[in-house]
């Protein structure tokens, strides 16, 4: 019987990043943070005050005039959309077994995620709570036009 040994000092097999594992970890880490962010979001927007009846331009402007709510909502946007998209990727892999459709569905998820994150982030951070030329009664109370 002959034993074969690896040549000494040969490079070990390259270790590649296990993206599937990091996706798994991301679902759980983002989930814990999302519980806090989403419950706060629903409490302030749907439960406190007049609930959904109170939501209009003035309400949003009142929140996004403050960097706190801008960053709060940006974190919500990024964490929730990436969590949801990665979850949808799992589901596509489970049910869409044809290789072509599988690839295209995941591309569609990826492209829509990137576009919506760009759009949402742009909206939050380029937002003007007191746009000129808007009827004064639509504006929040702190605008000079009121």
């Amino acid at each position: 019987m002959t034993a074969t040994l690896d040549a000494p000092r040969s490079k070990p097999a390259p270790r590649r990043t296990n993206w599937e594992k990091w996706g798994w970890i991301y679902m759980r880490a983002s989930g814990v943070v999302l519980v806090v962010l989403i419950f706060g979001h629903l409490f302030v927007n749907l439960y406190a005050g007049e609930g959904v009846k109170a939501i209009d331009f003035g309400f949003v402007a009142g929140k996004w005039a403050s960097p706190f709510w801008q960053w709060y909502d940006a974190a919500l946007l990024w964490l929730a959309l990436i969590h949801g998209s990665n979850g949808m990727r799992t589901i596509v892999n489970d049910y869409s077994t044809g290789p072509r459709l599988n690839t295209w569905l995941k591309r569609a998820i990826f492209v829509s995620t990137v576009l919506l994150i760009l759009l949402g982030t742009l909206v939050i951070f380029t937002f003007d709570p007191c746009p000129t030329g808007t009827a004064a009664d639509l504006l929040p109370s702190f605008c000079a036009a009121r």
Partner: protein
Amino acid sequence: MSLKSTDSLTPGASGGLPPTQKAGKRFSMPKRPAGTVYRGREGMWSWVLHRITGVAIYFFLLVHILDTALVRVSPEGYNAVMSTYKNPIMGLGELALVAAIGFHALNGLRIILIDFWSVGTRNQRLMFWIVIALWAVLMLGFAPRHLMHIFGG
């Protein structure tokens, strides 16, 4: 390459047999038709609900980012779309959405406990009913107030 969510992340560790048959060997579970992982009871139904609520919330989120983006287009446009969210039918939809998110969030925490807590798996069935109880309390707190906002009380 596309992995199914039931595939093992460590190839090789799984041996040749599918998980159901391996489980059958190790724990002498009742024999099931090979090739299915659907075993019923709390474990399966919590997964079904988690998946359905996840998809529902995802599609709402897509729409919600677009409708909120209207604040950047015109205050009048945003207000016009928001007023459609205030009619009774949408109000019931919002109730269903909060119910879905409430379940997904609480059951998500249960999944995390099953994964990381040493006795999580052993207590998964009990934790499922705790999730349902907490969810019911949450909905009893939210539903009357939301319905009052919607139907004006």
